[in-house]
């Protein structure tokens, strides 16, 4: 147990672009929804943890602009510069420490305002990798190729992930209104970083997500009727140089999920978990992360999909929300996965609800070829 429960969830609609909304206006929308969901006012919030990355916002200290809308004026706020799920785990630790009774966690990103791939080239070391032009796209291309070489699981398998998540996204009222995507559509889309095609990559998306965490005692005193417990959490990182890594290995994800499962008393995720929301910035990654999360042995992510296990209605649906491929912004994606996992446990996942969810996994990642992983287990 992490000593924290989730009492409120608020997400904006996720859209390719929100040109008429400034970032504070977008974040305020998610904050008000989360407070409404928790049925509390901002005065009940003790502290705030924000997630944003300066280069994507085009602003130094990009949390300055949201200070007022996240309610951080004259309150503690810490900004985790990375994936939103990591911000949630940190927030849970501050609650578990007994420092705060309630913490509001807010993640935002408007990918439509900046140059995603070029910004990501500034996230690899400037001495040996950036001069070659490495970025999140080419790093994923190298990983996808390595995965295909090792397990013989290629584009035709990944395309099925896009097909599944696009269909799920159409059932999610918050996901961008996108057309259905057949595997054939994916394979027909232009190659962007061989072997990855345009539809293999998560689309640029704008949005914000807010969760409200509380200690069990404070949740009771606030009259929260459906608190969802944050049962386990873990995070870890791989080496930074791609050449120091086996790109098909998932050691960091294994360490992060192992830590979360141990805390949550999960022996076998396939048996003990009823839904997974993972951050698949690229189609092949849903298969690779499924393996890293221990849902199946290495290389068998595609079989799991083939057998319908991870389909909506399967034994262990993965990304019934549509996931990142369905439209979930960088930085926000991991926190949005946690929001979805909480809604699933509460039975409030309109249009995308999985039956009988008691335990759910949320996964977040950032960095080249999934260098950093965060995993959380939530439960009733």
């Amino acid at each position, binding site marked *: 147990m992490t000593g924290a429960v989730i009492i409120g969830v608020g997400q904006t609609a996720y859209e390719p672009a929100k040109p008429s909304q400034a970032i504070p206006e977008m974040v305020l929308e998610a904050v008000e929804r989360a407070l409404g969901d928790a049925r509390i006012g901002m005065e009940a919030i003790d502290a705030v943890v924000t997630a944003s990355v300066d280069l994507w916002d085009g602003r130094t200290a990009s949390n300055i602009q949201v200070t007022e809308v996240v309610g951080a004026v004259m*309150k503690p706020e810490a900004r985790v510069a990375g994936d939103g799920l990591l911000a949630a785990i940190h927030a849970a630790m501050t609650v578990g420490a007994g420092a705060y009774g309630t913490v509001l966690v807010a993640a935002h990103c408007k990918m439509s305002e900046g140059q995603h791939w070029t910004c990501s080239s500034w996230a690899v070391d400037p001495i040996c990798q950036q001069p070659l032009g490495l970025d999140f796209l080419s790093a994923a291309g190298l990983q996808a190729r390595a995965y295909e070489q090792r397990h013989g699981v290629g584009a035709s398998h990944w395309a099925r992930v896009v097909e599944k998540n696009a269909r799920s996204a159409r059932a999610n009222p918050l996901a961008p209104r996108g057309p259905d995507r057949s595997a054939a559509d994916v394979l027909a889309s232009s190659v962007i970083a061989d072997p990855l095609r345009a539809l293999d990559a998560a689309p640029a998306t704008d949005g914000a997500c807010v969760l409200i965490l509380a200690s069990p005692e404070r949740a009771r005193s606030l009259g929260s009727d459906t608190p969802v417990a944050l049962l386990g959490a873990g995070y870890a990182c791989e080496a930074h140089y791609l050449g120091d890594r086996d790109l098909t290995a998932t050691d960091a994800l294994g360490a992060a999920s192992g830590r979360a499962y141990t805390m949550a008393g999960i022996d076998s995720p396939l048996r003990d978990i009823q839904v997974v929301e993972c951050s698949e910035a690229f189609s092949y990654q849903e298969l690779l992360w499924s393996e890293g999360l221990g849902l199946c042995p290495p290389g068998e992510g595609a079989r799991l999909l083939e057998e319908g296990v991870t389909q909506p209605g399967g034994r262990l649906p993965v990304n019934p929300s549509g996931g990142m491929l369905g439209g979930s912004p960088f930085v926000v994606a991991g926190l949005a996965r946690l929001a979805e996992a909480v809604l699933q446990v509460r039975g409030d996942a309109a249009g995308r609800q999985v039956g009988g969810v008691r335990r759910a996994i949320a996964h977040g990642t950032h960095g080249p070829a999934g260098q950093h992983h965060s995993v959380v287990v939530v439960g009733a």
Partner: protein
Amino acid sequence: MKWRRRVAVIGTGQTVHARKRDDVSQQEMVREAARRALADAEMTARDIDAVVIANMELFEGRALPELWCAEGAAGAGKPVLKIATGGTSGTSGAIAGALQVASGMFDTVLVVGFEKQSEGQTTAGMALTDPMWDRHVASAAIGNFALSISQYMAARGVTEEQAARVAVKARRNAARNPYAHLQQPGLTVEQVLASSVLAWPVHMLEMCPTSDGACALVYAAEDVARRKCATPAWVRAVATRHDQPYIGDLDMRLLTMRTLRSAAREAYAQAGITEPLKQLDVAEIYEPVSYAELAWYEALGFCPEGEAGRLIEDGVTAMDGELPVNPSGGVLSTNPIGASGVIRTAEAALQIHGKGDTRQVDGASLALVTGYGVYAWSDVLILSSDPG
């Protein structure tokens, strides 16, 4: 303080801060500080459960720099997280590390703050201020401070000489701190006032430098701390307050400084402090400009409103005064932005560890740390040899 378990700083380490470090990459500079902190804590890299990095990446034109630099902080394969909150990044990182250990998730956390501003243009970070408003009326930190200082001087009667004394104290203290960036043992008030005016009334010699540097500290939970460290520096209180986003929102900023007053009040209550000037043994406070230290004296309750000038003139905050402030030389002598708040925390901890050598305040057992950033963001920590 009602934390789940006690936490202490058991080791500190920092680089020799300088205008420019050509001999190390950002990652290697982080490692230099981390190695010293691990050695001071008599620990190996394996003993570290998690890493917190504090850094303001745009000053070096980076994104997610912790993914590269954490390997320099014994973070390979481990939980790594970066805190970035402007000037308070270092103290907010220090607070984050302490809370992580207090939560029970980790028994040991290594916090490393760093900045390598020589790799960018000093105003690089300032170029990306708020695009709608501040970017059109830019005057950088110095200009913003100068505006508030004109209010502070008019309202509290503070003189340029009194402010210059703060700079003299800082640079002289720094001369006895082997890690400080600017060391001027013989600096005089006259020299400060004769130095070029950057933005009236702020002179060159009373404004903080930009530096390359890193600072690390090792946190441990109570059982580990007692086993590994003779005099752990227990974290007795932490408090943070942020404020509204625009400088014009903050009425009479330096006079009121509501965030620092409120954070100090909360921290003092947690640590059972009622008369800070008498009870505190040493303070490491975050003063980017001389006048700020005087304003912070009042906000921290060291003296009544309008008495800060007397405090510095009477040497109350000198090394031999009642409450030595910034034995390290402070931000006025060393300012690698992401590290500055960690340096304050580490310098307070090493005073309690009795490892201050030429800058040790004898018998220091209760230390105050502050962090300052953006226009009026404030952090406060209180460390003590007494676990409370």
